[in-house]
């Protein structure tokens, strides 16, 4: 039964990656930029929850809500101040480097406010979980919660994109900014909305991640951010179901690799899988093949 347990833990970690990857993939699909600071939004969200729950002693639900609101505002502000002016810059690298600057900035502001020491994050979820097969398969509460949250977010996003006007506008902007604006779509507003959703998702991911791994530092978000980006690329960047699949695959591989192959080499295994997948399918699992017109 231990394999099943590891598999479920992998799915749980994968759901968290998937939630972060959804933010990455939406922003990439629509603004065509790698938001390197995305991982740091997770850290910001986590510190907000930490402050509200551990320092102010308010209930976790309040913490999550405030974190989502503040992260959303932060996402919108970052986009307006740092990214939007560079949208038509001569090189796409300009906005990438700026995103790296934003990432450093957020980490160092957190460092100034909270210090470098690890903060113990109290669990957001009090549910102890379920016991199956006569106690041989025990699933912890937060494991189930993160999987369920992941699925709910996927369903919500799919409905939002396919059924609402704003969602359709996102698809149009992702396809062709120029044509979309000719069709009367407000491209700037759509991009802002995308950043808002991505940042809100990062706050949710932060809450889940710090429950699973309750140690919070200013650099907490960086590696999961990179892994989630890998997940987004693995699934086919720009594709929402792709991000979900990529995240789950990555989480499962990481946990199983740690358990059965080598705990030190788990990162190498994760990145190795990415390389293999891209060599077989250069645009990821669900990515579209784009051919340049001659």
């Amino acid at each position, binding site marked *: 039964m231990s394999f099943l347990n590891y598999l479920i833990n992998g799915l749980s970690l994968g759901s968290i990656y998937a939630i972060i990857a959804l933010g990455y993939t939406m922003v990439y699909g629509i603004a065509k930029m790698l938001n390197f600071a995305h991982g740091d939004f997770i850290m910001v969200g986590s510190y907000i929850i930490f402050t509200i729950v551990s320092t102010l002693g308010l209930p976790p639900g309040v913490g999550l809500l405030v974190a989502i609101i503040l992260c959303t505002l932060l996402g919108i502000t970052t986009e307006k101040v740092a990214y939007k002016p560079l949208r038509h810059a001569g090189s796409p690298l300009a906005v990438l480097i700026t995103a790296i600057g934003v990432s450093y900035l957020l980490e160092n502001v957190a460092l100034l406010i909270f210090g470098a020491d690890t903060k113990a994050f109290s669990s957001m979820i009090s549910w102890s979980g379920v016991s199956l097969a006569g106690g041989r398969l025990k699933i912890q509460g937060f494991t189930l919660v993160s999987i369920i949250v992941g699925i709910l977010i996927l369903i919500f996003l799919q409905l939002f994109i396919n059924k609402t006007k704003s969602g359709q506008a996102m698809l149009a902007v992702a396809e062709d900014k120029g044509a979309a604006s000719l069709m009367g779509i407000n491209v700037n507003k759509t991009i802002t909305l995308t950043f808002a959703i991505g940042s809100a998702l990062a706050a949710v991911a932060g809450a889940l991640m710090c429950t699973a791994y309750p140690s919070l530092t200013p650099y907490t978000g960086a590696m999961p951010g990179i892994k989630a980006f890998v997940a987004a690329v693995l699934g086919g960047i720009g594709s929402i179901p792709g991000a979900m699949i990529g995240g789950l695959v990555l989480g499962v591989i990481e946990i199983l690799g740690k358990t059965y192959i080598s705990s030190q080499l788990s990162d190498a295994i994760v990145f190795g899988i990415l390389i293999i997948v891209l060599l077989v399918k*250069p645009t990821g699992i669900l990515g579209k093949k784009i051919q340049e017109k001659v």
Partner: protein
Amino acid sequence: MKKLTKQQKSNLITLAMVVCFYLICEIFIRTGLMSSHLKGLLVPLTYYAIAAVGLNLCVGILGELSLGHAGFMCIGAFSSSIFSVMTRDALPTVPRFILAFIIGVAMTALLGFLIGIPVLRLNGDYLAIVTLAFGEIIKNILNAVYMGVDDKGLHLSLKDAASMGLDASTGKKIINGAMGITGTPSDSNFTIAIIILLVSLIIVQNLVQSRDGRAIMSIRDNRIAAESTGINVTKYKMLAFTISAAIAGAAGVLFSHNISTLTAQGIYFGYNASIMLLVYVVLGGIGNIRGSVIAAMILYVLPELLRGMDKYRMLIYSIVLIVMMLFNWSPKAIEFRQNHLSKFSKRFRKEAAR
């Protein structure tokens, strides 16, 4: 004497600049005007300039974004260090370092070539993330590997030092897992570093202004047109990527021979370090080789000079980075500069003269 072309002049200016920088530093050192803290930064800032020149060949000239160049530095650092540690007592300093350097660069070139085969089939951001992945794999493996020698030969393990089964009396640990390599002779110094920087500059500049350089840049500008003009796209991508990696490897050799304990830590060899190199290249000007050298030197020293402000230095650095990017690249800022700044600077000069 033949008249120099504009490009040749520009090349010479770059080289002269480096030599001047070297001479000035030497004068300050000899006269005791340079603090030991600053002196300690000279070799690092030179090898980061070298790595930035190498990365610019990949990013600026070939036009492919690599986020794995710190991984190439790592290969150069470890392979040369392994050699130096093993031959520490057997060889005198000069041939030992020359051989270590050749081994470090050759190993990195080989690995760059092997990684290039799959990586260069991809495009754009996919290529970037795969180079990042390779860099992380290199770092991760070198953190987990144990290596030692005894009279029976080489021993390797991915588990722990004991499982290598080294002979107790003749065995010698070389790589001690995450603790890395200790005891690399500090064979590099500022002069050697500057010579290697000059050689790297000559290689890259001469390459760029040749048939091969034009072929590489034609691929960057328009792959399809390059192909139908008879350019072997795969060959030239590989050539540029391999040389770019090898130069980063050379920087790695200097790195490991300037530090007593070499560990494959993220801050030196992870994606963050690759990104730092990329920042040098972008701020120095994509494709501008001289710019990479200047940007690497200034940006490496800047946070170190801010050490007095300790807590705030990285904060200031990040803000400077964002503001510089916005100022340099935003179309609105460029327009504003063109419209107002020339007027402003004229008025400023007038007032200053008053």
